[in-house]
């Protein structure tokens, strides 16, 4: 059954704050083989003008995961998770995610479209500090493969 385009514009309540730690950043940097000292050494990060160690450009996916799951498992949306494929992803960083940040995510459904039997859902997650400073805008396009696709 195709997704109802009427869900376009739907927004979700803010997430619980996510505490960004130096250790989680280091663990993520290790897992992607990234070598930059700015991910590991607070002094090196400060020399580049950052407050503390910063996170790699795709780390926001970890911060927003629970929020994206809220959308994916939204019972009203009736999205068949077993047919979901990650179509595309982008991040706009208003500033780098930095150790010590307490980040809140708010998800919005920006678009629901259908093409060749597949549904495409675009989810925009606005990530900002608990103080209200915008940090990252993450956009994910999920493809829900049709029954015959």
């Amino acid at each position, binding site marked *: 059954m195709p997704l109802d385009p009427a869900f376009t514009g739907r927004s979700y309540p803010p997430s619980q704050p996510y505490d960004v730690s130096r250790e989680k950043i280091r663990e993520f940097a290790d897992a992607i083989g990234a070598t930059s000292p700015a991910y590991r050494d607070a002094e090196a990060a400060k020399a*580049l003008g950052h407050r503390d160690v910063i996170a790699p450009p*795709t780390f926001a996916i970890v911060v927003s995961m629970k929020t994206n799951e809220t959308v994916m498992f939204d019972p009203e949306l009736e999205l068949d998770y077993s047919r979901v494929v990650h179509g595309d992803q982008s991040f706009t960083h208003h500033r780098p995610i930095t150790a010590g940040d307490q980040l809140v995510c708010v998800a919005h459904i920006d678009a629901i479209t259908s093409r060749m039997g597949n549904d495409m859902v675009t989810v925009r997650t606005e990530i900002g500090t608990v103080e209200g400073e915008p940090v990252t805008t993450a956009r994910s396009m999920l493809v829900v493969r049709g029954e015959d696709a």
Partner: protein
Amino acid sequence: MTPKVVTEVGTELPALSVRLKRDDLVRYAGASLDFNPIHWNEKTAKDVGLPDVIAHGMLTMAVASRIVAEWIGDPGAIVEYGCRFGRPVVVPNDDEGALVDVTAKVTKDFEDGTVKVNINASFAGKSVLTGAFARVRVS
């Protein structure tokens, strides 16, 4: 901070080759909290019609971002990064794993202190990320 590298349009970034093996996928699953079994369990992968276990698209995307971060020096200069997931990177259970080759080139000067870098990531001779790009602050 002004980077120490040439950022003119047409500049090719130093190429990067990254080998992804099963343990890398397990490590990324743990670090990213994405435990979808198609990224570590052959049976599940084959049950859903994949040839074998595949790397997380987000791992390939993260690995490809390194070419820009390592070139520019300050990863905080990457103000935008995006791609489409074109093909999966298939990772067999052996010592070779899968080799992902990453190349990139400065393609546009936005004339606001940022440039566009187009990124190509390929596996077994075929592109795996489509339209991958980063917008990078250079001044």
